[in-house]
Each structure stands twice: as structure tokens, then as C-alpha cells.
């Protein structure tokens, strides 16, 4: 008689496979749906304004004129300030926690930073208004928004940087130290080459977060119209802040313009993230 090698019926396996596939498909479907409906509703304003939507400084809903350059600028400028402030601090904290701090101090620092990450953004925004704008006299400006955003993205960059730095093999750190490297020389010579790709990725992720942040930025950036300036103390506006502030009283074309802003933001963050990935991948080779 032939041996029966058919085994158990793998119903559960089949079901699991379909379930996993369906979950993945739903995510993609939702993303595509969002992109399509948003893009569709952005068409009227782009039809009317053309490329001027991105290049004009005049945003005047009453006249049906929508030039988004100031908001584009505000988003990029505040995010750049945030990253410029947050990255050195995050790197410093990550290096301190992984390389310098005594063991007993590491867990508390990490815990506190993780707490910072879960504070609701509206709290940061209000704190920014009360303390930075009023008490420190920064007013509502690009700088105030940049500082608030920096505080908000520091935990995520630190946490990623910490993980990246910890992937440096002990054997390579020992190799550097055995050659007479000081701790700093070891960090520069062994930890940095290992971590730089991941750190670029962490930075880009922080950049993406800073650009998309709505409430905190809306509270402190100043909500002015039309400022495209390097003056960090000038009030400005950013894309998510404009959307949040104007949606309620917008008519059809105005809504289309705000949706176009959202689509633009969506595209920029995707490009930033893809860029981050490309850099990480390339430096892995």
C-alpha cells in the first residue's frame, strides 16, 4: 500500500494567506483612493490658476486668486529650521545615551524622550504661543514655528538615531579603541560610517513630520498672507495651517485650492520619504 504523504489539510494556512493579502490590498486601495479623490477635487483650481498656483504670492480667495507660494515657502522654511535645530540635539542625545551615559541613566532618559513624543501637538502649540511668542518675545513667526516643530520631532529622530547607532557591531568599536582611539575618535571612525545612512533616513523622517504638522504650526506661525522671506522673525503661514484655518469658511473654488495644497503636501512628503530611502539604499552598497 502506498504511503500517505498528503498530511493535514492546510485550511488555516490558506485563510491566513488571503487575510494577509487582503490587509495589504486594503492599505494600498485606501491610499490610491485618497490620492485619486484629492487630485480630482484639486483640478478646478489648477485649471484656473495653472502653474501660477505654485509661483504666485497672491492668495486672495475673495477675488478667486490662489497663489500658494507663501505657504509652500512657510512649510519648507519652518521644516528646515526644525530639522536644523533638532538634528544636532537628537544626535547628541542619542550618542550620549548609547556611548557616554552610565547604564543606570540610560533608561530614564529614553523614557522621558518617549514621553515627549506622545504629548498632543496642540499642547506644544499652546505652550509655544504662551512661552516662546509672548514670554520670550519671538512673536508668531517662522522661527517660533520652527522651534516648536524641532521640539516635536526631536524624540522620533533621537529614537531612530539611537537604534541606528546601536547597530554598530561591538567588534568594530573594539577595533577602533584597540588602535588607540579615544571615545570620540571611535564614534567618528567606527560608529559614524555605520550609522550615517540610517541617520539621513531619520532626519528625512523628521522633516516629513515637521512639514505635515498642522495644529502646533497653525497656532504659532502667525497666519499672515504672502510672506516669502528668509527673515525668521517674520510671521508666515504653512500649508497645513492654511487648510485648518480656512476650510470652514471656504466656497467651492477655495476648497479646491485648499485640497490642492493638501495634494502638494502629500506629494512633497512622499518625495522626501522616497529620497530618504534612496539615500539609505545607495549608501548601503
Amino acid at each position, binding site marked *: 500500500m502506498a504511503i500517505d504523504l498528503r498530511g493535514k489539510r492546510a485550511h488555516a494556512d490558506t485563510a491566513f494567506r488571503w487575510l494577509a493579502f487582503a490587509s495589504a490590498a486594503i492599505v494600498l486601495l485606501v491610499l490610491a483612493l485618497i490620492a485619486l479623490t484629492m487630485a480630482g477635487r484639486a483640478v478646478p483650481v489648477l485649471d484656473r490658476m495653472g502653474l501660477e498656483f505654485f509661483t504666485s504670492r497672491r492668495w486672495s480667495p475673495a477675488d478667486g486668486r490662489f497663489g500658494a507660494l507663501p505657504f509652500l515657502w512657510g512649510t519648507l522654511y519652518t521644516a528646515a529650521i526644525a530639522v536644523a535645530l533638532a538634528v544636532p540635539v537628537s544626535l547628541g542625545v542619542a550618542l550620549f545615551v548609547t556611548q557616554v551615559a552610565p547604564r543606570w541613566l540610560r533608561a530614564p532618559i529614553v523614557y522621558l524622550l518617549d514621553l515627549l513624543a506622545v504629548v498632543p501637538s496642540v499642547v506644544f502649540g499652546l505652550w509655544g504661543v504662551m512661552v516662546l511668542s509672548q514670554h520670550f518675545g519671538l512673536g508668531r513667526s517662522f522661527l517660533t514655528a520652527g522651534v516648536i516643530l524641532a521640539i516635536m520631532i526631536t524624540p522620533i529622530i533621537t529614537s531612530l538615531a539611537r537604534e541606528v547607532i546601536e547597530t554598530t557591531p561591538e567588534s568594530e568599536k*573594539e577595533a577602533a579603541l584597540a588602535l*588607540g582611539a579615544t571615545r570620540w575618535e571611535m564614534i567618528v571612525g567606527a560608529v559614524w560610517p555605520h550609522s550615517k545612512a540610517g541617520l539621513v533616513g531619520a532626519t528625512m523622517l523628521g522633516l516629513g513630520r515637521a512639514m505635515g504638522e498642522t495644529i502646533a504650526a497653525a497656532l504659532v506661525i502667525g497666519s499672515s498672507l504672502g510672506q516669502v522671506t528668509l527673515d525668521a522673525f517674520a510671521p508666515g503661514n504653512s500649508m497645513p495651517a492654511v487648510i485648518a484655518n480656512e476650510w470652514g469658511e471656504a466656497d467651492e473654488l477655495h476648497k479646491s485650492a485648499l485640497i490642492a495644497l493638501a495634494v502638494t503636501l502629500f506629494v512633497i512628503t512622499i518625495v522626501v520619504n522616497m529620497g530618504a530611502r534612496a539615500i539609505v539604499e545607495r549608501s548601503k552598497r
Partner: protein
Amino acid sequence: MTHVETFSEVLAPVVFDLSSLEVFYGSFRAVRDVTLQIRAHEITAFIGPSGCGKTTVLRCLNRMNDLIAGARVGGRVTYHGVDLYGTQVSAPEVRRRIGMVFQKPNPFPKSIYDNIAFGPRINGIRDRVKLDEIVEKSLRAAALWDEVKDRLRSSALGMSGGQQQRLCIARTIAIEPEVVLMDEPCSALDPIASARIEELMRELKNRYTIVIVTHNMQQAARVSDRTAFFTAELDSQSDQRTGVLVETGTTAKLFSNPREERTENYITGRFG
């Protein structure tokens, strides 16, 4: 033969002088009562079963134990008469003079050239010509130059294990240390690659003092001038194993006519 041995024993100056050395990891005493001398331009081998503390003692000689949290050293280790654990002593400076090659080849994920230039660079050498010179000299000394001279810019990770280990040796001697410590340098290599490293060690001993930890008794017998045999003793009070030094002597004597029965049992394969 005996005459020559005595003669060299008188001449070779002491580089390391260990007296009643003990090492703790937290409250655990890993090694105790190590008293021995390591002499210039000799190869000293540390042998013994696993857990006998030979690597621990080796890592005391260039302060690598400092990196292990809770490690503490008692007794005295001097290097040319200077207490290695003295308050004025800087560990990086110690390690610059006393290089180390590890059990597993650990090149940096950089080019062959940059691996060798790492040490000279942190010592402030920036001049290209000078660096080129050091790289070539070090690779030649490690018998690696002819194999890699056409691909100095390619990644060290593309080399074979044996080449990587010779690269690590070249990287170590690029900083012109006086001593090279080797922690089971051949344990991750095949016999042919091991033989090349042994050959290299014999060449290097003219210029460096070498201390090697090895599991391989034949290797110790083949390459070393002097051997220290360690073993692990069970401490009756704490029920922990602590490494002790059983005996030291010229390799010829230790392998042919050991003083202690424990040494004889180990080298004849009756134990360990």
C-alpha cells in the same frame, strides 16, 4: 640548547610584569594570583581550557577590560616599570603602544587602504605620501601587499577570512606598537590561513613583542618561546570557577617536562 635558552632568558628585558593580578567582573572573580613576566621580542603563549581567564588576562595588558562594565583589576600590571592602571595613565595611549588582534577578523566596512590608515590618521598623520608609505609598509609586513596592492580602494569586507585577519594585523602594526596582543587569532581560520598567520608571527617577533592566547596547543608549541598555562579552579566557598595561572616556562620545557601534574594532564590531553 640549554645553554642558549639560559642565555636568552638573561638578555631579554621584561616588558610586562604581572604580580598577583586578579580581575573581577562585578563580584565575580574571573582570575586570581597571576604572576608572570613577558619579555621583549618573544612570543608568549597563554594556553588553557575554556574559562581559565587567559583572554581576561590578555585584555588587562592593553586596558581593553576597561570597556566591560563592572570590570575591576587588582594586583599590579606594569609595562616597562609603569603601572598600567596608574591614575595618570591614559587607556588610548596604552592601546596605541600595545596593539591587539581579535579572535574574529574585525575590519572596518571601509576600503583596505582606509582600514590601515585609520590608526595613523587618528594619530594626526594627514600627509598623503606619508600615509601611502605606511599602508604599503604595513601590508608588506603582514605579507598581504602582493595580494591586495591593485585593489587598495576596494572594501576590506570582500577579502577572505585569512586575508581579513592579516589586514587586522597590518592595521595594528601601522601604528607602530611595541607589543601585539593576539586573542585566538586563528580560531576562525582554516589550517592554511592559520599557517600563514603563524609564519607571520615568527617574522614579526623580531620587531614586536607578541602575546597570543590560543586554544590550540600545537600552535603554542610551534610558535611560542614561552608558555603560560592557566586553568579554572572551582572555588569551594562561592561555587564559582576562577582562573589561575598554573605554571610558566619556556615552551620547550613546559611541553616536554612540565613541573605540575595539571599541566602535564592538559598537554597530554587527559584533561581539558
